[in-house]
């Protein structure tokens, strides 16, 4: 039971991050490596603000804003300075390492004695007794669903349609007399905002910030998006955003299985094999292989 709870919690926290990766990778068709820096940026922001006594819920919004700024920077580097997409992400990721260090003040900031979104008098009064075990999951679920529905709603606005057009057919955006560069910047901003929000939630759940917590974020994000989108392709009644959240949970479940059943040295290999199996199954499921994947 506890292990399932853990997988759901971790899966949904990383799911918020994966929603951001979904925007860049799937909608904008932009391989954005900024996330390895913006995920810990959100965490560093939260660590800084929480240690200074700021309301933990407010830190979520500020972390989101910090991520938006990081995304705008990546966008400006790419659009205005004409740096290739992959490179502009790498540049921002590298720069953010220092920014994160400066923001947090040191490489590891513990938050054990502080109030977080999961542990404050208000929440502890609502969740008492047996319910206390589920409070993290419920809060994470609310946050993840809120992000999902807001993102769904946004994608239906005019700006959201332009975003989707920019990824599929940017000539269309230009022909509508819109600046496709601006659309990309907006997309990157929202994406990195979500990633930083995920980082903020992560730091508050694990109760510490560590500078190395961003390493490999992009791998988890891409894996979640790909697992979710390709495995659940057949279930057309689910929105892509929902499948991304499920994909993230499935990825964490793979890791949990690898951890529980096999010797520690083999963990990465087992995770890779499980990932492969899921991909192969999903390829069998779908009718034709997409050529540009």
């Amino acid at each position: 039971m506890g292990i399932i709870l853990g997988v759901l919690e971790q899966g949904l926290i990383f799911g918020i991050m994966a929603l951001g990766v979904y925007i860049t990778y799937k909608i904008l068709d932009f391989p954005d490596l900024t996330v390895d820096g913006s995920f810990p940026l959100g965490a560093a922001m939260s660590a800084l603000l929480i240690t200074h006594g700021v309301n933990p819920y407010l830190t979520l919004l500020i972390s989101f804003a910090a991520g938006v700024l990081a995304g705008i920077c990546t966008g400006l580097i790419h659009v205005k300075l004409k740096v290739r997409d992959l490179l502009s992400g790498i540049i921002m990721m590298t720069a953010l390492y220092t920014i994160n260090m400066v923001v947090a003040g040191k490489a590891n900031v513990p938050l054990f004695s502080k109030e977080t979104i999961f542990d404050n008098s208000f929440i502890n009064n609502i969740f008492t007794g047996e319910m206390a075990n589920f409070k993290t999951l419920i809060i994470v679920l609310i946050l993840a669903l809120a992000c999902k529905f807001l993102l769904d709603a946004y994608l239906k606005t005019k700006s959201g349609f332009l975003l989707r057009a920019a990824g599929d057919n940017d000539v269309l955006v230009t022909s509508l007399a819109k600046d496709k560069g601006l659309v990309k910047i907006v997309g990157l901003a929202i994406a990195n905002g979500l990633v930083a929000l995920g980082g903020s939630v992560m730091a508050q759940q694990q109760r510490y910030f560590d500078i190395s917590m961003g390493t490999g974020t992009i791998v988890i994000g891409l894996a979640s998006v790909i697992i979710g989108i390709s495995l659940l392709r057949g279930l057309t009644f689910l929105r892509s955003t929902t499948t991304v959240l499920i994909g993230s949970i499935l990825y964490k479940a793979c890791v949990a299985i690898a951890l529980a059943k096999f010797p520690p040295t083999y963990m990465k290999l087992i995770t890779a094999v499980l990932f492969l199996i899921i991909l192969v199954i999903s390829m069998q499921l779908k009718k034709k292989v997409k050529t540009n994947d």
Partner: protein
Amino acid sequence: MKKKMLAVILSMTMAAALLGGCGNEQKESSAAKEPAATEQPAPQADDPQAAKEPEEAGDNASSEENKPASGLVEGDFTIGISQFAQHGSLDNCREGFLTGLAEEGFIEGENLTVEYQNAEADMGIVNQIPQGFVSNKVDLICAIATPAAQSAYNAAMNSGIPVIYTAVNDPVGAELAKEDGMPVGEVTGTSDKLPVDAQLKMIRELLPDAKKIGIMYTTSEVNSESTIAEYEAAVGQYGFELVTTGINTTADAPLAADNLLSKVDCLNNLTDNTVVSALPTILDKANTQKIPVFGSEVEQVKIGCLASEGIDYYQLGIKTGKMAAQVLKGEKKASEIKMETITGSELYLNTKVADDLGISLPDDVKSRASETFTEIQMAE
């Protein structure tokens, strides 16, 4: 269409095989570190543990040979060990921990089940490991290194499962202990704080004319930062000046080493994981310029540091294991045990390095060395 799918599968399998290859290599290298302990319990000169405590090194070989002083403790216990990364010192800690438990009557395979997990330095996984332990309702979690300890305490906080940590450099800074060393909850353990004064004193003895000590550290490791702060406070007393260089990854090490070596009379190495990984490169550069490099623990002296006044991670592990035994027996709660730091230090020397550098080692230093190596072991 089929071909394309085949190609995808093939490339994924190759990638998986590559990953697997790396994993195996690590496993072999960690096994190669304790040849005497795993193959034959007889003491051998190249194995410090076997040479110093032959009877304890025997514990690693087979638990049947082990004779706990107090006899087996009644009952069936399960512990989870969450180790942050594969690393010589951390592995020694873990072995010491199990030996410490065995000496107190908890023997793996008899009355003790050990679930060992290694996060391979992945911050996402280091979180998931203790959650698994908590859901399996283990009796105790042993966490090795700072991030593992913080995650374990966070996961176990509400379940009442005690956490015993080791190799946490600064438990107070990590908010695992209060200023006076008492735990903040059901969490206690041992710190691997380096004996800074002893090390500086030893460097002064070996190099009476040296003025500047260089230290390379990784900016992402808090342990290194807090140790450097201690060095900064202490170097003055011994007439040294401190020069530091921060790096981010092992890839930065060669350039940083060149820069640092041009400014200093000797290098001093901490237990900084990234720098330790790059140590062979640094040693190579330092040797060509005849600049001595001091280590912080025995493994570093083995591969070519001149000397180290460091702590013995195996002993640290034993101490931690005994703390865990107290908690398992129910003698004390984790929250009642003060966190501990090893006070003594062990001197290790490498005479081959001294000869190469043309440094004569004073006899009194030689005589108090816990162990002297006469050759440089090739780094794995």
